[in-house]
């Protein structure tokens, strides 16, 4: 399943080994992680707006968040987008919905043990063997990650 918004990022030319967001952006290729960050910021605000409409009857809003990596590292780490998008959502809530803030609990979960099955350097690999694959097909990726085939993953075609 491919989410159409991401299709333009998934050209094979964008998958050669060793690419990163910075070098891609220098070449004029839009960054999929920066785009995901932008979407998560929008979704976060939408979520806060929706919760605020139920403020009167609301007991407790539990938000699955992460720490503000860019701010708390003094700007040293600027590309931990999946942390910052969530932290900015809560900063937005705090700044714009002072009555919702005291009813909000952010739950920061640790990393998933299942991450270690992914085809990344976190998965222990044999010395000398390729540490990763530049383009995995759907069945390999599913097998490697242990995700069910029905998992709606944006990056698989």
């Amino acid at each position, binding site marked *: 399943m491919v989410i159409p918004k991401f299709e333009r990022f998934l050209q094979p030319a964008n998958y050669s080994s060793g690419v990163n967001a910075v070098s891609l952006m220098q070449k004029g290729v839009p960054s999929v992680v920066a785009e995901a960050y932008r979407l998560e910021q929008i979704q976060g605000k939408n979520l806060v707006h929706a919760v605020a409409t139920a403020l009167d009857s609301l007991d407790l809003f539990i938000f699955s968040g992460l720490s503000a990596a860019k701010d708390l590292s003094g700007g040293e780490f600027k590309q931990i987008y999946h*942390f910052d998008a969530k932290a900015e959502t809560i900063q937005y809530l*705090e700044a714009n919905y002072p009555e919702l803030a005291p009813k909000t609990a952010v739950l920061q979960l640790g990393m998933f043990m299942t991450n270690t099955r992914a085809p990344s350097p976190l998965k222990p690999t044999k010395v000398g063997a390729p540490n990763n694959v530049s383009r995995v097909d759907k069945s390999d990726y599913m097998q490697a990650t242990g995700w069910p085939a029905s998992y709606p993953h944006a990056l698989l075609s």
Partner: protein
Amino acid sequence: MPCSAETPVPFIDPNSDPAVFVKALASQPLPPPLLADTKVRQFAGYAKMTTFTEWTELLNKHLPVEVYFEETSIEDWASKVTVVPGVGLELAEMWKYCEKVGYFGGEKGGARIITEVGLKSRVLRQGERRLTVP
């Protein structure tokens, strides 16, 4: 990995642990925020804080091959993650952030560790409120 072997890394079992933490938060009065300039309460939920030293020991104990940990630069590690462009650098920075600041943002992050504040799932007492709104 692009962080030291002693970097604390929190792990959960995603299929069961989130429900335990959510139930703990939703079933009792919550302590106030740790930081003075925020009204949002921040909680850290994890089953075990571990290090790659521990990991390597465990893998060596249970696998029939020799496993070792190698610390790399952010750039070297990022270049090996090629499934999606950009993800390598994002994750590599995250590991280094875990070493230098902490996954939960360190002291300035203001997150209370759920187990350390004694939050366990329980039923509200009669007349007890979930939140005391300041």
